[in-house]
């Protein structure tokens, strides 16, 4: 074999190998350089952390007397724990929320049964009693390991006043909050169409192109609720390897770090219908601005066909992903 033959053979081999690695019909995946701006597991940076973590300003502090006897296995804890459980409610008093907003309370420690609390809780909508139930989860809030969420079977009715009353009972002292609901605003984000359709009180408000999570970081599926919003945020990953400021019109959907937000760097993928974010719902800047103005905390954002697993109930206001027959059993702490 002479030098020319060897060269030809090398060229052929390289060419065949190169073609076999990526054929002509393979389309490039979403570029990763467009993603690190909103990595998965985002968290608010320090100055905003308090507001983000506690969801809203903390309202009344109510000392609840826990008369329950602890079991043998928990003798240790009984000896050191205070006699009362502190409960703090997210302050929803006299404010207007979307129809998906759960009533949230944080508890200072776990208790064995929520039966007395459940029996003492009554909820009215515009003065008429409705059925609502508590569901308990672990909470990441410091000093309050248990979170209780209270909701009806379906979303709250629109444009009403909701009153929650906890009557004095063997577990708790009295407490009450009330809040208003606004329009029944539900956004449906269809991954197949890369489109977010927003409906308000039965009318279509508009539809907006989106780019959801790419192959490596798919957006989770299911029903989410807007938890918090900021005109401009600094977001960072938990590992501290990434930090980006100036992300505009962020509306938080999960603790795992999914947001609706403006993504001026990703407009090409938004317009071409390519999923390339790290789980966030990337919006065109003008759309993000409009939706920031029109959507409110408590509004529902559904992802019926997103690629990821179903949203966990404790990854934000994941309440609506728990079927009612499971919900009424109480989750972490039984209610019956």
């Amino acid at each position, binding site marked *: 074999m002479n030098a020319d033959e*060897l060269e030809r053979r*090398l060229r052929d081999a*390289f060419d065949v*190998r190169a*073609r*076999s*690695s990526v054929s002509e019909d393979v389309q490039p995946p979403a570029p*990763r*350089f467009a993603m690190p701006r909103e990595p998965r597991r985002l968290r608010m940076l320090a100055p905003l952390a308090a507001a983000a973590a506690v969801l809203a300003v903390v309202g009344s502090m109510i000392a609840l007397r826990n008369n329950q006897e602890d079991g043998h296995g928990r003798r240790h804890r009984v000896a050191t724990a205070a006699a009362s459980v502190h409960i703090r409610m997210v302050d929803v008093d006299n404010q207007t929320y979307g129809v998906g907003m759960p009533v949230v309370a944080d508890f200072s420690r776990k208790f064995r049964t929520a039966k007395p609390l459940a029996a003492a809780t009554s909820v009215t909508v515009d003065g008429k009693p409705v059925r609502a139930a508590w569901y308990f989860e672990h909470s990441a809030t410091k000093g309050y390991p248990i979170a209780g969420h209270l909701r009806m079977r379906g979303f709250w009715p629109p444009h009403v006043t909701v009153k929650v009353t906890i009557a004095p009972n063997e577990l708790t002292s009295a407490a009450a909050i009330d809040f208003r609901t606004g329009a029944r605003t539900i956004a449906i984000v269809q991954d197949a169409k890369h489109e977010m359709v927003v409906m308000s009180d039965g009318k279509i408000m508009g539809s907006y192109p989106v780019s959801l999570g790419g192959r490596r970081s798919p957006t989770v599926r299911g029903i989410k609720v807007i938890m918090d919003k900021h005109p401009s945020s600094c977001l960072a990953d938990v590992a501290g390897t990434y930090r980006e400021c100036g992300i505009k019109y962020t509306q938080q959907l999960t603790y795992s770090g999914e947001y609706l937000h403006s993504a001026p760097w990703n407009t090409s993928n938004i317009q071409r219908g390519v999923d390339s974010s790290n789980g966030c719902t990337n919006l065109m800047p003008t759309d993000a601005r409009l939706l920031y103005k029109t959507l409110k905390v408590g509004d529902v954002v559904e992802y019926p066909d997103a690629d990821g697993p179903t949203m966990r109930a404790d990854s934000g206001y994941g309440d609506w992903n728990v079927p009612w027959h499971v919900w009424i059993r109480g989750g972490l702490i039984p209610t019956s």
Partner: protein
Amino acid sequence: MLTSVAADDPVIEQPLAPASPVDLHSLYRAHWRYLVRLAALLVDDVASAEDVVQDAFVALHRRAGALRDPDAALAYLRASVVNLSRSVLRRRQVARKHLRVAEPEETAPADHDVLVRDEHRAALAAVRALPRYQREVLILRYWSGLSEREIAQTLGIAPGSVKSAASRGMATLQRVLGGELG
């Protein structure tokens, strides 16, 4: 060592044009396939090759200055791909050494098996066995379509070294493959 694109660039004195994300996206669309193929030749594994190319674009993204000239950007990407491919191979070696991965050295990925004929496979295996610079020079010379000067720039070595690495590599291949074919 990466090629320092900005330092050699004659337009360095001009005010930098704002690095528009659109430029990077179109660069990506235009060169993704070429770069993944280059990386696949270097690391012999498509998944790693795709990672290498993504990392190269992320690196370019951080160096917005390199974007003002598409050719300079491509040179930068090429150099990154070579560099990152070396890291992949180094990591793989370390992993083999420490974890004793029970995997034959010459196992080729599935797509390789289907589409690459024996004759080509032997040539590729022989290239893989060459020292690093020789292997890289041959791949760049006989596949990428780069000039000797561009190869030197990509690898961060002198043009003379490109020439000598190529001839030493070819001599080895001649011996290995020539003997095999008889």
